[in-house]
């Protein structure tokens, strides 16, 4: 009994990251393993911490606007929208209908770009090489529209507090229509490659299950929550920027596993196209900026505003002391909160599934660490 052979399993602590291709950034996960089985994890984060909230307290409201793009840098437009909405709430500014409509179009296009990057890298992690090339090809078209609109591709700084800085360029509507028409068959193409692919299904089905109740308990939002059967989307529940005007469905699935999260995100891309298609036909004429003074100085008070970012609930809690700088600017990052559930999702599973589960959470470390 006392003799041990190399077949006896012992607990092994393994460091995954911070430099690891499948952690999607500088995330370090310490894994406690028994053979191939994961017993527990500990996430070490903060490698990208830049003190965004502190910077916010030391900049004026308008100056801070570009900083938010650098949190979730694959969905910069969503970040900007959330921040602008929060400050607009504090100022009680009405954003003109035209600006709201363009905001919705760009935000949904950004959601597609974000989901495409997720799909490509997630598939790459699992071992499907082809989708990443397709996804980046399609994402490029979305980024080109951003570039034509505001000159930047990634950290766009597209919105201003009170509306938009730029009018849409000539042919913007046509570009969106063309994109929609061209993009939907591409989603079919990805689904042909993956949805019924036996390896894909085998690697994802039943992996990293998180039930609806567990999601609520961990504060997990976004596609992860919807894949667990909870039909909740802030665009529907607490609509902002005129989302109540557009017809779209909230895709949900029941099992809460990695495969369901994949399906939910694929369907969300289709829904985004649907929203864009309606919005682009209904862009009203009119001004693009609300009545915002040159100096942004909200009254003493506080507000919490959140939006449905591609990753989940992105919230801004802004406290104003009546000066030109936020007294406190808290960002409620969906990636950070969702990542907390990683331990629950991987514990008891296999080490090979850890990569699949990190991929399916769709975290961006710039946002986790801020």
């Amino acid at each position: 009994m006392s003799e041990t052979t190399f077949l006896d399993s012992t607990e092994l602590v393994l460091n995954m990251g911070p430099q690891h291709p499948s952690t999607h950034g500088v995330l370090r996960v310490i894994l406690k393993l028994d053979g191939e089985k994961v017993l527990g994890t500990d996430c070490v984060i903060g490698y990208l911490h830049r003190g965004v909230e502190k910077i916010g307290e030391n900049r004026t409201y308008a100056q801070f606007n570009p900083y938010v793009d650098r949190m979730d840098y694959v969905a910069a437009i969503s970040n900007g929208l959330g921040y602008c909405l929060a400050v607009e709430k504090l100022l009680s500014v009405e954003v003109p209908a035209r600006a709201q409509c363009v905001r919705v179009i760009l935000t949904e296009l950004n959601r597609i770009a974000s989901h495409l990057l997720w799909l490509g890298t997630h598939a790459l992690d699992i071992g499907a090489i082809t989708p990443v090339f397709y996804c980046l090809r399609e994402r490029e078209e979305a980024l080109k529209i951003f570039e034509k609109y505001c000159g930047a591709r990634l950290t766009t700084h597209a919105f201003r507090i009170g509306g938009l800085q730029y009018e849409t360029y000539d042919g913007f509507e046509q570009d969106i229509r063309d994109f929609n028409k061209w993009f939907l068959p591409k989603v079919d193409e990805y689904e042909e490659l993956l949805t019924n692919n036996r390896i894909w299904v085998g690697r994802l089905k039943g992996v990293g299950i998180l039930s609806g109740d567990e999601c609520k308990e961990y504060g997990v939002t976004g596609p992860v929550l919807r894949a667990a059967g909870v039909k909740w989307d802030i665009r529907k529940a607490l609509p902002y920027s005129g989302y109540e005007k557009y017809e779209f469905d909230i895709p949900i699935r029941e099992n809460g596993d990695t495969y369901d999260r994949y399906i939910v995100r694929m369907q969300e891309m289709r829904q985004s196209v649907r929203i864009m298609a309606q919005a682009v036909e209904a862009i009203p004429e009119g001004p693009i900026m609300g009545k915002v003074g040159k100096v942004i100085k909200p009254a003493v008070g506080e507000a919490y505003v959140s939006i449905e970012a591609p990753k989940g609930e992105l919230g801004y809690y802004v406290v104003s002391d009546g000066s030109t700088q936020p007294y406190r600017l808290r960002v409620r990052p969906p990636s950070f909160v969702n990542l907390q559930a990683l331990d629950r999702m991987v514990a008891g599973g296999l080490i090979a599934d850890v990569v699949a589960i990190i991929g399916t959470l769709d975290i961006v470390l710039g946002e986790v660490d801020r």
Partner: protein
Amino acid sequence: MADEQKPGGSEAPPPSGSEAPKPAAKPAADAAKAAPPKPAAAAHPAPPKPPATMAATPWDSDLARDLKTHFAESITETSTYLGQSFLVAKPDSVIPILEYLKLEADFDYLVDVTAVDWPKRAERFDLVYILYSFSRNERIRVKTHIAEGFKPETATGVHLTANWLEREVYDMFGIEFAGHPDLRRILLPEEWQGFPLRKDQSILKQDDRWVQENLGIPSGQ
């Protein structure tokens, strides 16, 4: 640090209550000194507004009344500002309130836990819990005022998600949560000195020694 704060706190702002005015010393001084150079401004600011407080209105709803009957004096304020409702409670009763809200009123999703530093106030920190109820489709905030060194009870027993959120509050403000299962720094390195989101920490101020030792930057900045 607590000793430094207290005399400052006792001279100016009221010890407790609702939203304590932030720049407590300013308005009086402003009225006297800043008035001459700005005649236009001097015309209207003086009489009506008690300065620098949130223009919140009472939160009138069944839930607010229900909470008030249950927690009586523990709830010091129920208000609405910009259509967003919040209540201010005494530190000891926050966790029972969160529990009650979760079990009886279906506020089953803790959106965020964060803090705000008001260094001039005797109870220096605002601790803010943002809650959402899926079934009611309603979002509220539970706030409490705590003094430096006070250890509020952890909310992890009620909402698991409080774990990392409270760790971040500890990391940034140095508020220690009693009974937290794993109270370590989360974003900053474990050996880091100082709590960056406190107002007395300048944005340029880093932990020089840590930077020198670990990053090899001689200036520490």
